[in-house]
Every structure is written in structure tokens, then in C-alpha cells.
């Protein structure tokens, strides 16, 4: 006798069979059993409905049709699920690692330097480079540090045992062998400021340059010292250039280099080749000046030395110090890299340990 319970039993039986079907074959078997036109369970059910009591017929017909639809849907869903789990000819395991083209890492000092160069280029500065082997005139005398000047003590210099020919380049290009041979270098520059002199000797004002490069001091390597490190020198010369302009330039740089909220603090200081001179602190970007471990609670980080070009320097290069004024600064590239990346040992920059180098983003 057909009733709602009987239809429900058919449904439970179907679901049990469906659950047991793990292959296409199983699934086909279930489909044949229920949906075959001849002899299928559903076909039989429909016949029974047709023969049921007229009063029950509409309700039973409705239930039977609902069961048929459900069986069709369940079978289709099961078929798709089985298809998804089955290897297809030519399929790839998309989760395996791709064939990434090789890519080396820029040295962290190059990264910092590149960033500085980009910013200063945008600010209208020209990038020039200078020789690392220098002579005393360019490194000291022309920078208002005559032989007797106590400031020469401030930077212990590495001297060359025998004079060496000058570099094959000038700020404007390759030079002749004769000019090169006549130019004798005796020391390793202690600062990129020597290039200020070379550039002004060969160019008329106005001047707007930055000079990145390698410098040397007679310091034994330890956590915070290195006999070799890198600086970026800046020089701007023109008419009516002021200390306020120096502040404006460095602030524009700092806000792009470090943080848009950066503030600068200028503390009077002393360098023989600038007057007035200042040390510059930048507000700590880790705590925005509130005080933290990075800035040792002060809110400030010492970042560079600078000042207005000393008139004696202009005299040494043949500029008229009455007509022109300008400013210069020198920034340690390692210093910036150390602060930015929390490097605790300057020697890491020169060990070239890939475990260190590979930590920096490309």
C-alpha cells in the first residue's frame, strides 16, 4: 500500500546507496536502479501513484515528483564531486613551486644609496662620483684644514706608501693619460667632501650635487667602526643661499626618506669647512619622537653633519665668497642602513653573508 512513509523509506534507501558509491561505475548502478525508464524504482513508483486512491493521488504524486528531482540532483552533484577528485590527462599540480627566474639581491647599502639618489634627483640635484684615492689638497687643505690644523686629528687618515696616478676619470669623463700621470694621489679620502672641491674647481655656480661614495678611516673594525664606509655628500651653491635653505632641503629629503611626519633638529657644531656648522637629528620614526628603544628614549636620531660652506673653501676653489654662498652636508650610508634595518654590527655589511643579504627586499 503506497503512502508517504513508503516514499520516505525509498528516499533513505537511495541516500544510503549514494553514499556507498565511490566510482563512476557505482554511481551508474545507482542511477540505473532508480531512474531507468524500464524497471527503475521511480518509474515503478509513478505507476503505483497512478493506481492509488483518487483522493491520495495528488499528494502522493507531488511527493514522488519531489523525490525524483532530488535523486537527479544528488546524482549530478555526486558525479561532479567524483570528477573533481580524479586525475585528468595532462593535469599539473598547481601547488608545486614555479620556475622563478633567478634574481640576486642588491646590497643593502646600494638600496639605501639608490633611494637617496632618487630623492635628491627629484629635488634637482645631480649625482656625481669622485675618486677614493685622493691628495691632501682636495681632502684637507682646500677644505680649510691646513697641515697644522687640529681638525686633521679628528680623522685618522690612511696614507698610501707610494704616490699613485690619479683616476682615469674627471667629473666630466675620461681623461688623458698625461693628465692622469701628472696627478698623484697619496691618501684614501676620509670623506666625500673632497669631491666638493673637485667639482667646484671644474664647474661654475650654481651647483647642486650629491656625491655618494666610499671613504676610509684608520679605525679598527668593531661593532660600530669600520675602516671603510660610505657617505653621501651634498653641495648646493648659488646666490643668496641661506641656512634656512639648508633646513628646507634636508627636511624635504627626510620626509620622503624616513617618514612624512619627520622633524629635524639642528644643533650647532664644528667642522672646519662649514661656518656655521650643525649636527642634524631626525625625529625617531619608530616612535615619532615619543622616545623608544631605537632612539634610546630621546626621540631623536643623529643622522648627519652639515653647514654653510666656509668662505675659505670658496677661496680655495676660486669662487667669490661675497657673491656666492652655499651649504654642504655629509651623511653616513651605513648609519642610515643601520637605523632603518636595526643592524647591530657594521661589519655585517662587508661579510657578504647571503643569510644577511637575502633578508633585504629586492
Amino acid at each position: 500500500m503506497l503512502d508517504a512513509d513508503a516514499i520516505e523509506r525509498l528516499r533513505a534507501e537511495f541516500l544510503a546507496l549514494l553514499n556507498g558509491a565511490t566510482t563512476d561505475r557505482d554511481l551508474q548502478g545507482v542511477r540505473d536502479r532508480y531512474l531507468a525508464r524500464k524497471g527503475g524504482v521511480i518509474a515503478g513508483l509513478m505507476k503505483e501513484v497512478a493506481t492509488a486512491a483518487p483522493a491520495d493521488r495528488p499528494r502522493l504524486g507531488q511527493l514522488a515528483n519531489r523525490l525524483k528531482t532530488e535523486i537527479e540532483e544528488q546524482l549530478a552533484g555526486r558525479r561532479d564531486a567524483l570528477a573533481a577528485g580524479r586525475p585528468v590527462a595532462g593535469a599539473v599540480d598547481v601547488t608545486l613551486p614555479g620556475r622563478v627566474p633567478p634574481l640576486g639581491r642588491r646590497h643593502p647599502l646600494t638600496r639605501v644609496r639608490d633611494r637617496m639618489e632618487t630623492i635628491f634627483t627629484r629635488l634637482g640635484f645631480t649625482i656625481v662620483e669622485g675618486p677614493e684615492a685622493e691628495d691632501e689638497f682636495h681632502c684637507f687643505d682646500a677644505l680649510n684644514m691646513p697641515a697644522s690644523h687640529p681638525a686633521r686629528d679628528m680623522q685618522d687618515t690612511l696614507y698610501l706608501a707610494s704616490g699613485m696616478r690619479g683616476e682615469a676619470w674627471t667629473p666630466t669623463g675620461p681623461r688623458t693619460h698625461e693628465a692622469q700621470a701628472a696627478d698623484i694621489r697619496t691618501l684614501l679620502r676620509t670623506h666625500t667632501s673632497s669631491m666638493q672641491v673637485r667639482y667646484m674647481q671644474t664647474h661654475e655656480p650654481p651647483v647642486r650635487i650629491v656625491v655618494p661614495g666610499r671613504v676610509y678611516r684608520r679605525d679598527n673594525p668593531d661593532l660600530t667602526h669600520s675602516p671603510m664606509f660610505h657617505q653621501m655628500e651634498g653641495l648646493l651653491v648659488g646666490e643668496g643661499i641661506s641656512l634656512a635653505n639648508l633646513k628646507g632641503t634636508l627636511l624635504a629629503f627626510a620626509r620622503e626618506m624616513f617618514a612624512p611626519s619627520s622633524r629635524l633638529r639642528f644643533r650647532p657644531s664644528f667642522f672646519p669647512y662649514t661656518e656655521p656648522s650643525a649636527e642634524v637629528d631626525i625625529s625617531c620614526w619608530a616612535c615619532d619622537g615619543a622616545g623608544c628603544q631605537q632612539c634610546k628614549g630621546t626621540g631623536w636620531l643623529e643622522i648627519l653633519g652639515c653647514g654653510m660652506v666656509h668662505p675659505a673653501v670658496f677661496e680655495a676653489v676660486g669662487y667669490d665668497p661675497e657673491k656666492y654662498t652655499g651649504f654642504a652636508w655629509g651623511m653616513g650610508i651605513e648609519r642610515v642602513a643601520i637605523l632603518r634595518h636595526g643592524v647591530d654590527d657594521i661589519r655585517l655589511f662587508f661579510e657578504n653573508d647571503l643569510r644577511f643579504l637575502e633578508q633585504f627586499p629586492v
Partner: protein
Amino acid sequence: MRVPVSWLRDFVDVPVDARALAETLAMRGFETASVDDRPAPPAPPWGPGAAGAGDAVIDFEITANRPDCFSILGLAREVATTWRLPLRTPGAAPGLERQPLGVGESDVVGVTIEDPDLCPRYAAAVADVTIGPSPAWLAARLEAAGVRPISNIVDITNYVLMEIGHPTHAFDLDRLGGHALRIRRAKPGETITTLDGVQRTLEPEMLVIADAARAQAVAGVMGGAVSEVSSSSRRVVFESAYFTPTSVRRTSKRLGLMTEASARFERGSDIAAPLVALERIAALLERLGAGRVVGPVVDRYPAPRGPVTIHLRRERLASLLGVRVDDEDVVRIFRGLGLDIVPAADGWSVTVPTFRVDLVREADLIEEVGRHYGYDRLPPIFPAPASPPAAPDPRVARDGQVRRVLLAAGLSEAFTYSFIEQRAHEAFGLADEAEVVAIANPLSGKFEVMRRSLLPGLTDALAHNRHHQRRDVRLFEVGACFSASAGEVRKAGIAWTGAASDDHWSGTRREVDFFDVKGLVERLGEVLGVPLAVEPAAAPMLVPARAARIVVANPPFAWPALGLLGQLLPAVAEARGLPAADAVYVAEIDLDGVWAVRQALDRAAGTTAEAVAPLPRFPSVVRDVSVLVAAGLPASEVRGTILANRPGGLVDVAFFDRYQGKGIPEDRVSLSLRLTFRAPDRTLTDAEVQRAMDEIVALLAREHGAVQR
């Protein structure tokens, strides 16, 4: 310079606590190394400078240009100017008494300056003394300032040194032969035992204070042991002089002897201070009951110097600082600092006292105004460019391009030291003494000579990584190399060991070989605009037959080699700490040389070098051919022979295989060439191409004994 705040109060009523004082003076140019609290010291007889439970000692870092601030007085002047307070000067307040002393000739001591260039002023005063300990307040002040108390007489000289910054010295008069003080240069080989007990040999460059017989002090640096004040001294002579800074500095450096006195004299002491210092000493003798000055002060000062007057223009001040400072502020600042200032045409006339040795020109005065006006009050004003920026140094873009190419090839960038040990040069066969530039004063044997090549440093970097479990290491560096004949030259170096490419699950591992490194060299030539070729060559650092030099391909002019490449000799690698079994491939290119070639090529080619060629209008025909040639024949010669003759329609020759082994006679090698033919005006016929092919095979048979396979 360690400054007890309580001592500072003798001169000025410090209005803030020690930390605020330190912070504020830091913004006036005096950095602080430390601020240390300490219990209130014993009060001096004229009463405590300020009531309070404690004191503090601030350690200021004094810049080299401010010897006047190597003193309590000098810093007090800065405090007074900063807070607009009155300054009590020596002689004008309790605790700062000066006992007026007459100047004349002494019948006890004879003073002669024999070298007025090195000693422009020398003053001396004789005193009867009773040696004993100093009172607690004075000893405590010295200790706080970092000076060890010794005896009242020595302590008085040190007290005056710290207080007004002028070094003095006390000799035991009765130990001076002939009661004479002769200020002269040392005699050759003359010796002196200084107060620290060290016997020192002097040089005629050095100035000494001698008695009738011998040196009794190294002028401005340290006294001698013989005439040292001792517990038995009855009469002393106090020296208060001015020594020429460069002389004291030279002597101090030569002797390796830095003292409180030499630090001040070499930076420039106040030539007006000698008498003031003696008058303070006389007053302190009296206060301590330690003795009294007898007779006049002998003051040898053959060429007196006066203060210097500098003109300061109002407009210049405003234009250099970038802000207009009120006239009253300018006057207040200079007066506070002890300078005289009077109005003058378009500005002021400023008279600089002798203690400010750093103020010699207008810019120096402008700094003083800026410093005390406050740099923080200057507005930041970005300077408008006055002209378009100048052209950049072409090396910057060039080196950047080299870096990008090598990074994209998977090499990481190294920074190695520019100085290396000569042993490294030796290992690489670069030790030629005529070329090596040595450092005169090296820090150590590790940093003794300038590198001639980047390869020793890069090899060391490979070794470092190899020791830290990295078997595959690819590094490059762009940097300066140094040699006597070439000077400073920028090079690019490459060092590669281990896998040729990153390991991948899909493939088998291949080790780096010669052609990986050669490929990089060729790619660099391409991006630098100079076609580079390599030719076999020997190099002491490289494995024979896996060594080559880098040259310009088909140069239109003679040009020396631009670098080298090949496999590093296992013995060299081993000498630098790498396993001999690891193959290491290296290359080095002279970037400056390549650039010079590029410029020469550009000049030769004119402006058409970068013009685009029209695309071919007719199809090309490709034919392959394999030939057997002698195993030792460089492939480049085969290619060169074909290109030199270039039979009809040939446009390109490429190699696609090189085979030695089964089926090939032992002394022969099979080279497979892919030849491309094309005509600009028509499609080539098979017959035409075949003729050209026959011609090439015949040519190779004739020139190289080649046999077609």
C-alpha cells in the same frame, strides 16, 4: 670637560636643573656625554652657590674650535648668554678673587724667551709656600672635575686650569739650576724624565723650559720630575705662559703625550690670560694659607697682541641665516659672549677678545648669532633651482645598468674591502710590487695593500658563505681597483660556485661552467654597447685551457684586453679557504675601459649608430651543416673564416652543436653550424643557396682541413 653644576654657580645663577641645562646647551653647540648626580659637596668658604640637597656633574663634549670652553668660566659665559643672566668674572665676586700683582724684574728668578715664535708670552711669579693638603671643598671640586688632588700647590694650578681654562705649572725653585727659566728648543738628543716618570728623548722641534743646565719641562705638555713640587718644597715659581698651538700639538703628538695642558694650548689658549691666572693663584694661596707671592711677576711678552675687530653687515647676517634677527638681539648675544659691539656702517663693528681664538671672520660672527638666536627658529625654505640640473656622472647610470643585469642573472651584490692582504694578491698572481699600491700606515696585515682586483675579495666572500652551509653562491661587485700604472679603475667582478641555476623539482642540477660566466660577460657587453669577445689566454689565477681574456669584438682600432674570465685554479681557491674540489668560475671587466671603447665607437659611428634598419622584405633560408675539424681549432675561427668571405646571401652563422666521442676520430671534433641566407631584393633560389653552401664547405676544407659529415 666635566663640569660640577655647583662650581658653575660661582659664575652664574644657573636657573634650571642639570638635565635641562645639558639639553639647552646641546642646542647651543655643547653636546653632553653624561649627567651624573652626586651628593652635595662640601661648601666653599664663601657659601654654597645654591641651596639644595645635591649636585650634578655634566660631562660636556667641547668641539676643537672652542678651547675657551675647556673651562668652567667659558661654559658659564654660554649659560649667561643663553638665559640672559649676568656673568661674574674673575676678580668680581666672592670666590673669584684676584690678588693684584705688580709686573717687574725679579731678583730671584731669571726668565729668558729664546724662541718667541714658539713662546710669544711667558710670565712667572715666585712664591713662598707651605706644602700640605687642600681643603675638602677644593679637593672635592677637582675630583668632580676628574682631576686627582695632590697637594695644595699643585691643586691650585689645576683649580685655575679648570676654572678659567689657563694651564700653569709650578716648579720647585730650589731645584732649578741657576734659578733660571730659559724657554728654548730642545738640544738634539736631550732627555727629560717627565712627571709621569717616563724618560723621554726630545728633538730640536720641541720647546722646553730649561734651567741653566737642562730641560725642566716640555713646554705646554708636562713638567719634569726633577723640579716637581714635593712636600719639602719651600719656594716655587709659577709659570703662566702662551705657547704656539702648532708647536704644542706637534710635540704632544711626537711624544704621544696628551695632557690637560696640551689639549688647551694646542687648540689655542688666551694670550691675555697669563697674568689673570697668576693673580687667581696668588689669591688662592692666600685663601688656603698655602703661601704668598713674593716680588713682582716677570712678564716676557715681546710682541703684545690686541683684540681683533671684525665688521658684521646686517644684510649679510640676514642672507646667510635666512632670517632677520633684531638688532637688540645681535647686540645682546655678543655682549653676553664677552665681545664688544658698536654700530658701524650697514651693521656693526665687533671686537673679539683674545680668548675667542675661533672668531676670525664675518661668517664666524654670524654663527654666534645663529647659535644663540636658535637654529630651531630658522624657517625651512626649499631653495628654488636657479638653473636646470647639470648632467649626471655617466658612471652612475652605467654601474646601475651593470648591477641590474647581474642581479637579474641571479647574482647577489657583495661589498668587499678595498684593501686586502698582500698574501691574497700573491695567491692570485697579482703581487707585482711595481703595481701594488701599499698603505703606508695599515691597521693590520689584513688591510695592507689596495686591491688590484675584485676577485680576491669575492673569493673570500664565497669561502665565507661556503663555511656557512651554502654550496651554491653567486656574487658580484662593482667597485674601484687600484694600481700604480692605471690608477683608480672601476671594475665589475663575478665569482660563482655550485649550481648553474636555482634548484627546481622539475629538473636536474647542473653545475656552473665556463659558458655561464662567459654569457654574463657577453650580456654586459651588449648592455654597455660594446660587443665583447673572449680569446684563449693564460692567467696565473686561472686553470689553463679554461682561461680567457675579454676583448672588443672586431675592434675598429687597437685596444688592450678589458678583463679576464675562467675557472679559478683549485690551489688559489684552496688558499682562500674554499674546498679544492669546488669549481669556482670568475670574471672581471674593466668598466672604465669598456666605457672608453663605447665612446670611441660612438665617435666613429656618428649619430646613425642607433638608427633602425628596415625589416627584410623577402624570406630567409636556413641550412645546417656539420663538419669535422681539428679538436684544438677555436670555433670562433671557423665562424670568422665564413664571415670574412660571406658567400652570396649569407647573413648569420650560429653554432648549434659541438660533439666529440663515438664515431669521431680522437683528434677531431664535429661542429654543427646553422647558416642563414637572405637577399634584400628577391627570394633566394635553392640553387643559389646550395652554391653558397658548397662554397662554404670548400672554404672550410681549404682553410681548416674540414670534412663535411
